């Protein structure tokens, strides 16, 4: 068993104890000084706080009350004197913002007043202010009311009625003439009546003076006048026997009213003489102002109290500051002396052994210390010496080990440097390879972008969820904000639900079959609904990633429109053939029926009753024949006798007939070109056609309106006729017929020329009128256009071929068609809801050298205008869908861009538009259909570039 050696207990460090005692003594002295300082400053702070928190606000509040009371009196005086409502507002504000908050402040510091025995004064002020406010309220309540001046009120409300009665009665008495008016007695009576009337008038005037500023001074004169008037009336009453019955009655009424007048006059005098003849002033002087003075006195006294209290508190605070300062000086001196003595003794004890250690350390650093230092002390200095000796030994050992480690480290650094150089070479090679690959990739992308920009179609990448992942033609203009705005959006967010479902289904089919899917559909775009043909191809994607497709969408609207137009023409052609065939056969049958009926009619001459039946059958057969003639006209199979015809003469010759047909409620107007070419047409059939058009116009204007006939020469150029299969370019004579009737919807327009199509009801129309006109024009190798808007009227243009001029008439040399003036790359915004017409305009403008933006509605046009500041001219149809027509669009556009040029176009004639007020005065318009050259000239005229030549 080994006994563990007990470690000797370390000696108590004596030096630490001495140091601790020394520092503690200094700290105790400092703490004492701090406590004394705190106690002194606390008292000082309390006094300052009292001054700032209580006395100062009380002083301020007293002064605010004082100022507020004076202000309220001034404002009330203003209201009483001038009656300006602003004074009342200021008065209420003064109470609300000044006096009441100040009073609340005073009440909050009520305790302060108890210290100076002035609590009663505060209570008194509170009561006086309440009395004052109430008094002021009553003054302002009564000041501007009629009751404020009782005497004036009595005069206006009571006496004036009596006065009017008396004036009327005196007037009646004076005009009442007795039978013998020349009698001296009666003349005397008349004089006395006049005297009494004058006396009453004087009394009335004096009564009015009583109401004035010097009213009481007029009282003696009024009483004298009242007595005099009463005496005159008594005298008249005594002459009762000489008065007529009517005069007696009037005099009795006068006396009755006079009694009431004197009563009210007495009341008025009494009220005017009363001290409160002006209630508000009286109340203000006798009650409000004394209360205000009292409140002012109290507030002044409170302010003075607060000032005195403040002076007292300030003096106390100043004394406390001096005492605290001297106390601090004494304490600091004491502490400095004690601390100096204690610190000096301990510094001497510590300094000597530390100097020995310092010298040994310097030797050790220089390598000159060869032996340990002697240990002479048992305190911390001794411990420090021993530790120094141990450190010296350890240092020698560590120096030996450090040299060996240094050699090893240098070898390892050399090895690691070699490895890093090798890795760096490999990395540089990889970077060169990567840069080459990126260049190749950028070149590939540039090629792809070039390909995409060259393709007129729209290109999208969509995923299997129908989300636009990529838009390869982001600047395509058919979508608002560009096609780029579609990126990241779902099909259902962009298109209507059924359309989105359809497109999504196409994507699914492409992904399911892994084959290209071709689809055709109509979509809503910024330029209206458009047809697209799309090819949807699946894209190979790595496994695990969402499957995608590429969609190439091509705008085929124009192609669809052409197809539709062709279909319509074919339909009309087929209808013509069908109708013509049936009409021809039917006509032959009718010829047989009519012939036989005529024979039967002759044979039944002896039987009048039977003959009448045959005559009716003949009439019906003739109507049937007439119908077949119209059908033949539509099918262009009627025999025509085309001859040179002056349309102006034809129109003028029909005016009477048209007047009868249209009725009195429809006005006929004509605008006829004096230099009109002759037209090659059957005049009889044309008259019939014009009559048919008039009948249609009449039915379209049941409430009346205007029927306008215009003639003009026109030349249809190649660009225009290109859109029509059976139309040739050349000179034509135009006959335009317009009405201001109900117009036609788009659906009706599509079928308007079809035979038997009518909107008039079964008994009102055959549906053959327009068909006959159509057939006549087509058979005459002319051209017909129909333009109409629901509720706005209809214009029908008949382009009839110009007749060759007779040999003896000098032929007008047709000037060669001038080269249309070209544009200077200006940007034109075309607004047209009819996509075919819009396309035609766009094609014309593009060929003339303009840049074009197109819109199908006013709203889209405004959007394009706002985002394209380069637009120089707005070319808009007058009639537009969506509630904003061309004129309104132009107005809105000019509000945005005052320098914008505007050119209108319309199927209606200019005369029609001006008459209906649809266009502003001076507006520029080109009528549809327009030729390319006309459009070019008009544009240069409007844009200000001038016309060539």
């Amino acid at each position, binding site marked *: 068993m080994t006994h563990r050696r007990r470690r000797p207990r370390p000696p108590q460090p004596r030096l630490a104890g001495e140091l601790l005692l020394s520092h503690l003594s200094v700290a105790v002295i400092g703490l004492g000084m701090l406590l004394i300082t705190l106690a002194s400053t606390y008292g000082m702070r309390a006094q300052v706080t009292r001054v700032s928190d209580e006395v100062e606000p009380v002083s301020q509040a007293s002064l605010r009350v004082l100022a507020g009371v004076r202000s309220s009196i001034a404002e009330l005086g203003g209201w009483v004197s001038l009656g300006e409502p602003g004074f009342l507002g200021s008065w*209420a504000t003064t109470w609300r913002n000044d006096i009441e908050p100040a009073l609340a402040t005073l009440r909050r510091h009520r305790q302060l007043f108890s210290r100076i025995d002035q609590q009663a004064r505060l*209570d008194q002020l*509170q*009561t006086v202010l*309440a*009395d004052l*406010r*109430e008094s002021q*309220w*009553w003054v302002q*309540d*009564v000041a501007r*009311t*009629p*009751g*404020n001046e*009782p005497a004036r*009120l*009595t005069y206006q*409300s*009571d006496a004036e009625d009596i006065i009017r009665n008396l004036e009327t009665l005196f007037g009646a008495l004076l005009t009442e003439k007795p039978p013998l008016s020349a009698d001296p007695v009666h003349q005397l009576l008349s004089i006395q009546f006049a005297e009494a009337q004058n006396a009453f008038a004087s009394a009335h005037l004096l009564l009015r003076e009583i109401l004035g500023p010097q009213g009481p001074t007029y009282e003696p004169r009024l009483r004298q006048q009242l007595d005099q008037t009463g005496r005159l009336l008594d005298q008249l009453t005594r002459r009762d026997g000489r008065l007529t019955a009517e005069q007696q009655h009037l005099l009795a009424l006068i006396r*009755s*009213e006079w*009694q*009431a007048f004197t*009563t009210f006059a007495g*009341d008025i005098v009494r*009220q005017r003489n009363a001290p409160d003849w002006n*209630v508000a002033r009286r109340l203000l002087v006798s009650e409000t102002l004394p209360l205000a003075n009292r409140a002012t006195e109290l507030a002044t006294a409170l302010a003075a109290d607060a000032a005195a209290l403040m002076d007292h508190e300030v003096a106390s605070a100043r004394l406390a500051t001096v005492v605290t300062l001297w106390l601090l000086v004494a304490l600091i001196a004491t502490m400095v002396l004690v601390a100096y003595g204690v610190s000096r003794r301990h510094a001497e004890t510590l300094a000597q052994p530390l100097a020995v250690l310092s010298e040994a350390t310097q030797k050790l650093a220089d390598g000159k210390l060869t032996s340990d230092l002697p240990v002479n002390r048992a305190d911390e200095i001794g411990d420090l010496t021993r530790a120094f000796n141990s450190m010296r030994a350890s240092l020698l050992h560590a120096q030996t080990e450090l040299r060996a480690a240094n050699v090893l480290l240098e070898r390892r650094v050399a090895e690691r440097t070699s490895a890093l150089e090798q890795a760096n070479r490999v990395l540089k090679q990889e970077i060169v390879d990567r840069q080459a690959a990126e260049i190749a990739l950028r070149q590939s992308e540039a090629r792809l972008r070039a390909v995409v920009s060259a393709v007129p179609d729209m290109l999208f990448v969509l995923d299997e969820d129908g989300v636009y992942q990529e838009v390869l033609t982001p600047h395509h203009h058919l979508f608002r904000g560009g096609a780029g705005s579609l990126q990241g959006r779902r099909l259902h967010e962009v298109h209507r639900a059924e359309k989105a479902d359809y497109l999504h289904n196409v994507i699914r089919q492409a992904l399911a079959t892994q084959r290209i899917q071709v689809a055709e559909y109509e979509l809503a775009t910024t330029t209206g609904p458009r047809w697209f043909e799309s090819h949807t191809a699946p894209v190979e994607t790595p496994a695990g990633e969402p499957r995608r497709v590429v969609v190439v969408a091509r705008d085929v609207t124009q192609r669809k429109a052409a197809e539709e137009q062709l279909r319509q023409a074919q339909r009309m052609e087929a209808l013509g053939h069908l109708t013509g065939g049936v009409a021809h056969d039917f006509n032959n049958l009718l010829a047989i029926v009519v012939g036989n009926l005529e024979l039967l009619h002759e044979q039944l001459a002896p039987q009048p009753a039977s003959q009448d039946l045959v005559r009716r059958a003949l009439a019906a057969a003739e109507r049937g024949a007439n119908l077949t003639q119209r059908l033949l006209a539509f099918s262009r199979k009627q025999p025509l006798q085309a001859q040179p015809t002056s349309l102006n003469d034809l129109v003028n010759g029909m005016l009477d007939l048209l007047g009868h047909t249209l009725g009195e409620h429809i006005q006929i107007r004509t605008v006829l070109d004096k230099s009109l070419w002759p037209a090659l047409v059957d005049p009889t059939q044309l008259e019939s056609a014009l009559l048919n058009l008039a009948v249609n116009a009449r039915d379209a204007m049941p409430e009346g309106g205007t029927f306008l006939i215009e003639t003009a020469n026109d030349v249809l150029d190649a660009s225009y006729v290109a859109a029509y299969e059976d139309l040739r370019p050349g000179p034509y004579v135009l006959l335009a017929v317009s009405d201001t009737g109900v117009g036609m919807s788009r659906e009706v327009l599509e079928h308007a020329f079809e035979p038997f199509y009518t909107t008039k009801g079964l008994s009102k129309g055959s549906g053959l009128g327009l068909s006959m006109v159509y057939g006549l024009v087509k058979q005459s190798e002319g051209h017909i256009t129909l333009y109409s808007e629901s509720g706005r009227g209809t214009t029908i243009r008949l382009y009839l071929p110009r007749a060759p001029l007779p040999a003896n008439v000098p032929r007008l040399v047709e000037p060669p068609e001038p080269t249309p003036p070209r544009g200077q790359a200006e940007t034109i915004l075309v607004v047209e809801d009819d996509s075919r017409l819009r396309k035609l305009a766009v094609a014309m403008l593009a060929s003339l050298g303009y840049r074009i933006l197109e819109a199908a509605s006013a709203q889209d046009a405004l959007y394009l205008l706002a985002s394209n500041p380069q637009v120089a001219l707005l070319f808009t149809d007058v009639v537009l869908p969506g509630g904003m027509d061309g004129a309104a669009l132009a107005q809105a556009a000019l509000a945005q861009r005052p320098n914008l040029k505007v050119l209108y176009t319309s199927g209606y004639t200019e005369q029609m538009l001006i008459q209906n007020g649809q266009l502003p005065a001076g507006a520029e318009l080109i009528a549809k259909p327009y030729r390319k050259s006309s459009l070019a000239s008009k544009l240069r005229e409007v844009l200000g570039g001038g016309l060539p030549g």
Partner: protein
Amino acid sequence: MHARWLLPALLGLVVVTVPAAATDRRGPVTSSQMATCAEFLVCQDRFNQDLEQLRRIMGAAKPAPLDFGIRNAAPHEIYLLALTLFQRTNQLAFELNRVREEHPPPPPGLIQLEDAWRVVLAARRLLQNVQANPQVAESLALLGTATGQPAVTPAEPSGNEWFNDLFNAVLAGNRQLDQLLVQHTNPSDVYREVTRAISYAAQLLARYPEAVRVPDPPPFEPAKQPLDVYLRLLDCLERLQRIYQALGLDTFEWRRQPPPAAVEAGDVYLLAALLVAQLDHLHQRLGVARAPREAFYPGRKFPAHTYQRAALLQAQLEQLERLIKAQDTVTRDDAPAP
């Protein structure tokens, strides 16, 4: 001065001069009081019958029945209505005969039922002067039932019901008279009476230092009818009843009635006057020394103006009720003995 403005001033004078003890609620009805009451009622019925004749010949409308809801009316309340009756009759006499009489002086000391009766008798004399007007007399003669109607023998109700019937009869006479006047009671008169009530309420609030005596009025609301004012004043009356109860004072019995289809300005005026009378009574019971302020003709006012002013009164009474309940400074024991 025209009755339109004289009447409110006069009523103000009367209610101020009525001694406090005179306005106390009556105790059990004695047989002597019942006899007086019955005779008074007969007199009032005759007065009302004469008015009915006048109404017919003057072609005036007959007012629809109206019940304020007050059930045990005190003599001073009947006296107040009798004074209004006298003033309206006086105005009728002036409009027809151009003659006006001085109003009866206020009775000294305690107001008894006889005092009210005397006032009604004075009014009846005025009415007889009106009936003597040649134009009126001629029409009455043609009608055949001018005066001298057989005395009405009332039924024999209980004591309290006598007083109620009498109160309602005088009220009916007042309302009929207003229909006969050229110058009807109008919203300005009601406005003025409500202003007077505000003055009374402000004096009562002056007892409490922290009170706002005349609060800010609520925002003005246009297009109000007399019925709106009437209902708001009824609310004031109900609140006043609660104040009486909180103070431990005897008070009238009030039963809320279904709101009438329509009321005239004259009806609203009577209710406002009644409210002033009750406030004056409270003044005297609490020993308020300061006299109320006189209210002056405010010019043309609409019911909407009066409605706004009645809201001010409502706010005052609400404040008064709250302060009384909070401080409870006046109790039944503290109240001066009748």
